[in-house]
């Protein structure tokens, strides 16, 4: 039995060994993720944490389509017509044009979650930053306050959009809160006002005219947001606060909030080196191969083969959808609606009213895709059609109709062509290339170099102009608008300046449209003038249903938060 003893000792040894490889601990181990405790080791890290809500904001306002769609597609500026068999998609975009909003539309869901997530991310960043020891990391005095208040101002900007789209929304001051229901319009308004008033004095000031814009919220941006809130107070809470808006605008123009001035060349504002445009108050920075931001509408807007017009620009495929509400009917007669038809409203001498051409080295001209798409700098660079005009050079019209079918049994004559949101063809509607213009292939590495302006000084001029107009100072209003307009005409000779005597609701709306076309604000302007649901344009009939000034709350949001109440009328 001696043998067994040896065995036993060996066996016991083995058994112990086998047990020993097992640990009773069920603690997780981390590898490629960073936990907050080990993150804040440098100033850079603090800035990186600070920037998180801004990268969301960039995505929301300049890269993801819902916000732009909600602001533009139901208006007299843009439409996404059904082009032959393209862009029907269950009549989704036709519904936008007819204001047939329903609580199951995906854009409406994202319209809510995007602004709301922004609020959450900003408060979350603020709460994290509050715990950081700024002094220990060697930050300059005041950096902490500046950072915290920028987050506050950012929250206000998100809430401002929430109020604009939906009315009163749930108001949070922390991420450590219980889930809440909606506050009233007034409470939401007051909340935004309070946040901005607290933040503005602590925001950084732009001291250098034309200094680099890097996306942070300067004091003028905060003030402009407050001006926007007051300017639209009538729509939001039924109270007029135009004089408050005017005061802020005047202060901004006077330089109280930092150094800005109108740019003399409009292509500087949107162009390839626009981060130093003195007109920009707040923008989304963008740079080739770093943060590529295109202001969202390229792929939705430009014709299929438009990249060939730019010498075959890589990574510029597109889907030929959105275009301007047409100015002309199929026979070429101008529509008599007061609203819509933006292209025809541009003066023919307006330098913006020409075919977009990239001239090289960051220079370009024009902001439209219209007419025969042959690049004037190289006749071989043409945009051909892909559908009705397959293989032929595309001729983009300021009209919507099935011209390719004229002469068929269906449409024997031009006069028989219908012009509706449902009857467009490939070449219908003028397109806009205003934000984030693109270079030719030879300079492809400048693509996405243009920043996307979100607030610019011209808005302050126009806001002040409208406030003056509403206060009875029509000449003062006209002068402000003309100050901005000068730059669009050779030698500053505006052939059609605004005159105080003729300035009315419709002219004012036209001026807003010409200056801010495609910048994602049209719906707000129409609502402020009570025109959104009461006016006809092209194929759109007024619903006269004021409930439609606000969007419905998507049903899935109500499913996820049973305290949310639907907007009236939905």
């Amino acid at each position, binding site marked *: 039995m001696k043998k067994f003893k*040896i*065995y036993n000792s*060996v*066996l016991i040894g*083995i*058994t112990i*060994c*086998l047990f*020993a490889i*097992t*640990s009773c*601990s*069920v*603690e*997780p181990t*981390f*590898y*490629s*993720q*960073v*936990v907050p405790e080990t*993150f804040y080791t440098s100033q850079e890290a603090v*800035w*990186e*944490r600070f*920037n*998180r809500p801004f*990268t969301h904001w960039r995505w929301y306002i300049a890269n993801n389509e819902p916000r732009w769609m909600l602001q533009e597609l139901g208006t007299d500026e843009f439409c996404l017509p059904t082009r032959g*068999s*393209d862009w*029907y*998609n269950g*009549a989704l975009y036709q519904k936008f044009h007819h204001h047939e909003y329903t609580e*199951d539309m995906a854009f409406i869901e994202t319209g809510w*979650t995007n602004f*709301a997530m922004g609020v959450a991310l900003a408060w*979350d*960043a603020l709460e994290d930053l509050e715990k950081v020891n700024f002094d220990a990391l060697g930050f300059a005095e005041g950096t902490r306050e500046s950072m915290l208040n920028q987050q506050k101002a950012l929250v206000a900007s998100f809430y401002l959009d929430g109020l604009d789209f939906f009315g009163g929304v*749930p108001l949070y001051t922390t991420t450590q*809160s219980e*889930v809440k229901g909606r506050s009233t319009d007034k409470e939401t308004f007051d909340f935004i006002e309070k946040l901005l008033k607290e933040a503005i004095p602590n925001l950084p000031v732009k001291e250098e005219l034309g200094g680099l814009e*890097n*996306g*942070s919220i300067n004091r003028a941006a905060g003030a402009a947001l407050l001006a926007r809130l007051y300017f639209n107070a009538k729509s939001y809470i039924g109270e007029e606060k135009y004089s408050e808006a005017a005061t802020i605008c005047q202060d901004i123009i006077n330089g109280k909030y930092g150094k800005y001035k109108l740019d003399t060349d409009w292509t500087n504002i949107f162009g390839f080196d626009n981060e130093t445009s003195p007109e920009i108050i707040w923008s989304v920075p963008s*740079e080739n*191969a*770093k*943060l590529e931001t295109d202001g969202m509408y390229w792929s939705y807007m430009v014709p299929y*083969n438009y990249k060939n017009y730019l010498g075959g620009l*890589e*990574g*510029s*495929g597109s*889907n030929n959808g959105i275009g301007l509400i047409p100015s002309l009917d199929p026979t070429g007669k101008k529509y008599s609606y007061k609203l819509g038809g933006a292209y025809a409203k541009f003066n023919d001498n307006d330098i913006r009213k020409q075919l977009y051409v990239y001239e090289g080295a960051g220079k370009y001209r024009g902001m439209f895709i219209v007419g025969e798409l042959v690049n004037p700098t190289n006749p071989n660079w043409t945009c051909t059609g892909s559908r009705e005009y397959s293989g032929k050079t595309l001729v983009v019209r300021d009209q919507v109709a099935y011209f390719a079918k004229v002469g068929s049994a269906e449409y024997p004559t031009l006069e028989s062509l219908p012009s509706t949101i449902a009857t467009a063809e490939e070449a219908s509607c003028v397109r806009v290339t205003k934000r984030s213009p693109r270079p030719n292939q030879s300079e492809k590495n400048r693509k996405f170099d243009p920043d996307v302006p979100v607030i610019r000084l011209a808005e302050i001029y126009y806001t002040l102009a409208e406030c003056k107009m509403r206060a009875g100072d029509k000449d003062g209003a006209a002068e402000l608008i003309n100050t901005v307009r000068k730059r669009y005409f050779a030698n500053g000779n505006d052939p059609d300046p605004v005159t105080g005597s003729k300035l009315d609701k419709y002219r004012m709306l036209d001026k807003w449209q010409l200056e801010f076309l495609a910048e994602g604000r049209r719906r707000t302007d129409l609502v402020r003038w009570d025109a959104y649901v009461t006016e006809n344009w092209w194929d759109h009939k007024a619903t006269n249903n004021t409930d439609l000034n606000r969007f419905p709350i998507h049903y*899935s*949001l*109500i*499913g*996820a938060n*049973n305290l949310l109440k639907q907007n009236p009328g939905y």
Partner: protein
Amino acid sequence: MKTQQKFNTRPIRSFKMFSLLTFTIAGITLCPYNLQASDRNDTNKSIVHETAPLQKGKTVTVTVSDNVGPVIGANVAVKGTTNGNITDIDGIARLDNVPENATLLISFVGYISKEVSVAGQTSFNVQLQEDTKTLDEVVVIGYGTLEKKQVTSSVTSISAKDLMTGVGGSDVSSALQGRVSGLIMNNIGSANAGTTFQLRGMTSINSGKSPLIVIDGFPGGDIRSLSQDDILTIDVLKDASAGAIYGTRAASGVILITTKSGSNTSGKVKMTYSSEMTKKQNYGAPEMLTGREYAEHKIGTDYGTDTNWWKELINDDNFSQKHHLSLEAGTENAQIYSSFFYEKNQGISIKDERQDYGGRFNANFKVLDGWLEIRPSVDYRQAMRNNNYPNFQQAMRNNPTRSPYDPDSETGYNVWTNETLDYNVLADANLSTYEGLDKWFKPEATFKLNIKPIPGLSFQQVIGYENRQWEYHFYKSRYHREEIEDRRRGAATLTFDKTENLTSEGFATYIKEFDGGHVLNAVAGYSYFEKNGEGFSVSNYDFDVDGIKFWNIGAGSYLSDGKAGMSSGKDITERLFSVFARANYSYQNKYLLQASLRHEGSSKFAADNRWADFWSLSGGWRISGEKFMKNISWIDDLKVRVGYGVTGNNDFSSSYMADMLGSDAYWMLPDGTWAYSFGKTQNINPNLGWEEKKEWNFGLDYSLFDGRLYGKFDYYRRKIDNLIYSVKVPQPPFTQGSQYQNIGSMESKGWEFEIGGDIIRTKDFTWNSNLNLGHNSGKILTLWGNNTYYNGNGFPAPGSPGDAARIEEGSTIGAFYLWKFAGFDDDGKFLLYNKEGKIIPASEKTENDKQYIGNYTPKLILGWRHTLQYKNLDMGISLRSWIDFDVYNALNMYFGIQGQGNTNVLKSAYGEFNHIKGEKQICDYYLEDGTFLKIDAITLGYTLSMKKYTKLIDRLRIYGTVGNVCTITGYSGMNPQVNITGWEGGTEKFWSRDDFYPTTRTYTLGLQLNF
């Protein structure tokens, strides 16, 4: 016989050397404290000893028969030696050198082995008894086995021969279809498809939550790593009283798979070779308009040709083959099973194929005079995949007047751009290269220490390691549509992923029969599981040379432009630790009791919520063992049982409980340089607790008429509390849009009935039939927190018509949530009912008008298998049926309406549905009864004993199988066997490449040789 004698000593010694080696390696590699070298030497010396020298003896003749005649191929051996032979066509075997006092061991598969003392005789007649499987069969129950008659919970056991052969498929699930009542398997039939398992209905709101798969005692196995020929048995633990011993991961049931291991062949090497060749055929394709019809109806541009896009994507030249070789040899103290295989599986679709190679080595050694048993096993498999099959939705959409080919183009394909709903799907598939390589490497060792002084006591330690790897190479040619649209010259991606699982389990077993008929079978031990995952991926674009594909990935211009992609990551280590115990007690095989307990902790939960207890209690009463039943001779066995158990679910990623910062996008630092922004990536829920399933099971097992009729019945009722689900949450306060929460509770109930019988049992002809039936229903009891409802099964663009499923308090699992169809108006537009029951035009509908209509859970699921044998001929037929359930026919909805664009439509759009003109609506107009009867397989085989013809081959079997023969149904879509697992099923989801694949019939010719 000389060759056999030669075998006697040397191989065995080498086996022992090998066992020692394994033993030592296991000790060194797995053990942080190395054994002393001297110890190892000692062991070495003591293990290796010679077997006793052979004695001279006499020659003995044995005639083996059963109750119908001679048994061919039975094994006759001198016990304790390798001296043996196999009976011939007359049932006779001759053995030389048999010692006077020897014992002969006569065995044959399917029969009870018999021992006979030689005691001076030279000729024996031995009659073998058929193993009446139902009673003495051993059932694997996890951490041990139990005789079937002692089982007190619901377990279904399947042996290898019950699996269908020749049905092909991407994994073994296709051979298991319809075998286990209550087990639903969803697999679309592609060569690369994965399988979704669901046992006894939905146990968790997490769709696709599958049973825990335990392969040879290793929990968390991957069923895709197995080869059907290597499987010995599959035991399915259905109820919680059985599964509770596996605790956390057993809420959806446990599937225990045991692979073949060597047996005592008296040293003879048994070799089996099997081969299958398969040809596949597509049937039941949707009937779309032809090119001419499309042109006639002026749907879109007429390009002049007539293309059947569906047919273009079918690989008519498909050919699949399979070769499997297994070798088995053993003595009393050392047994080995080893197998190698090669498989080539081509799907019915183009660009859907795989080649698998693999091998398995299972061994069992008894050393140290029976004190220690060591069972090393190694399993390796790799699958080279081309999983680039095209999207068949596109074959339905495409303009049939356009040709996929253009002889004038560089590639021969007609590639057009700028159309998202109509593109050359054939060219897309053929102008891209997909190379995938899956690998599974699984070494494992079990050490069983038999504490000999205490009979019945043993300790087992299992160490298992599994390494799963995935390599992926993908290239899109510069001529590919997307590359042309983006003006790029090619796109390349290389990806590598690795998952490592480590399991260590130790448990003591004590089996003791006490006087008076008390039997105790107790197990107690611990289990540790660890999972690590890591991976990296690179992508680059725009290459000068197309032909090099991904093999010079740095050369693309996107790298120098700063736009190439590069990523890597390592998952949070997941850990699971538990201690467990189970005891089975039986008294006179009449009164049975089982209790089990598992205390388990998981790293996935927040620190305070990691540990939980899972337990079960069950009992059985074998009525047939009672005195008063003795006179009822037609009842062999009758047992009632009842069980209750609690099992858990922690099925979510371990990253969800960690407060982590992740990078988002570049943003400018104050100095104008770019850096990534960082923010929270999860909504942490520190209160998240275990999902718990509590289940009652009532069962009855029966075996009647001398084992000719047998089966069982189970009724179960289960409640699942603390349902874990990732729900949409409001932002703010949450930073992310979803969070894992314990959202509520649900219940489900159902029954299962299994009946099998030897309908005919004669010498020449037998007919065996097995039928199983199952029924399940479930509902949501409560939803907690801020969630009132949760929608699912969203239908896609074009049209985005909405969601077809909703769960809320009181909702039934499987119900559709739709608008109620009310007819068509004069323009052919849909009319619907609103919530007041008024008819409204579809344009006025609101979400509130939807209602619960229909249900995709079949009232009855049935599997029926017949095995017939006439002399050497055998035949198997497998049938399956789902009765009384609804299927949403999305094909008719999206492709059965005219005028919705230039995409092609079904012929019925201009026939049966000619009257519909309006936009499609998600309503019950498209809901159909999906009841079907499916012939899963018909097999015809012929077995021939080769003894007569050659000494080299024992047995030959050839067979032919037709798989997925036909489906008899009134459903008008392509395939009524839609995915019914989870709460978003019941829909023919043509838009999902993972759900929509051509229906395939397979023709297989198989060959099996036993040497």
